[in-house]
């Protein structure tokens, strides 16, 4: 059954570590460019987990999900970077802590 030579747990640990890196990047960085990069990392780690699972059970679903994640990432980046441009023009900064006009 196992289609992998590497134990799946190891790969999942790598995916988890990548996800955590992205999470920390998201929480700690104030530059919106880096926040978007963190998001990419997190999506990528999820994709890695899917592909791993797909390989493990020798199913195509993992790679299908990878492709869907790819589209999500592409759409997200397109909109996100458009927002970056607008924020830069509007606030003259990329510091998201200063772009807090939605505060209550």
């Amino acid at each position, binding site marked *: 059954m*196992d*289609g*992998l*030579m*590497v134990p799946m747990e*190891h*790969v999942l640990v*790598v995916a988890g*570590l*990548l996800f955590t*890196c*992205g999470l*920390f*990047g998201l929480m700690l*960085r104030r*530059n919106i*460019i*880096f926040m*978007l*990069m*963190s998001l*990419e*990392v997190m999506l*990528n780690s999820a*994709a*890695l987990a899917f*592909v*791993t699972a*797909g*390989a*493990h059970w*020798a*199913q*195509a*679903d*993992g*790679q*299908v999900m*990878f*492709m*869907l994640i*790819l*589209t*999500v*990432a*592409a*759409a*997200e*980046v*397109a*909109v996100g*970077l*458009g*927002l*970056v*441009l*607008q924020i*830069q*023009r509007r606030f003259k900064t*990329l510091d998201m802590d200063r772009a807090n006009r939605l505060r209550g």
Partner: protein
Amino acid sequence: MIVVLFYIAAVIALAATVAALTRTNATHALIYLIVSLLAVAVMFFLMGAPFAAALEVVIYAGAIMVLFVFVIMMLNLGAAGEARERQWLAGRSWFVPGSMAALLLLEMLLVLGDAHGVTSGTAVSPKVVGMTLFGPYLLAVEIASMLLLSGLVGAYHLGRRFIVRRGDH
């Protein structure tokens, strides 16, 4: 051997990611991120998903990262940006990512050079993936297409020069 190669790729992926997210310079970070993505692509390849690996390189490391580069470049126009450009060509800043990428290339060559063309697992061929994608997942494909369309519209709207709103000066 493939197992060892896999772990090396994993380490490179982690290291590049940590490096990418701890940079202060966006361009440097981007280069590390690309390395990270390449490492993940190698891992895909080693896990018997060559199609996914190819897409990872083409779309992620290629298209999406190029978008990032475009935006960063748009934000750093002018003489100051040019001076920084020159500084970036200095050796130290590209040595580490360069060597990481080289290592990954080496891995790929090793694997491709292997007579069996083996991967670490059972290969799932692109054909099966495509049949699954346009079979049971047809609806998801439709949704993804709509998502891309809306992303396109959103990006078009947001990418305009300046959106005038009430209350702006």
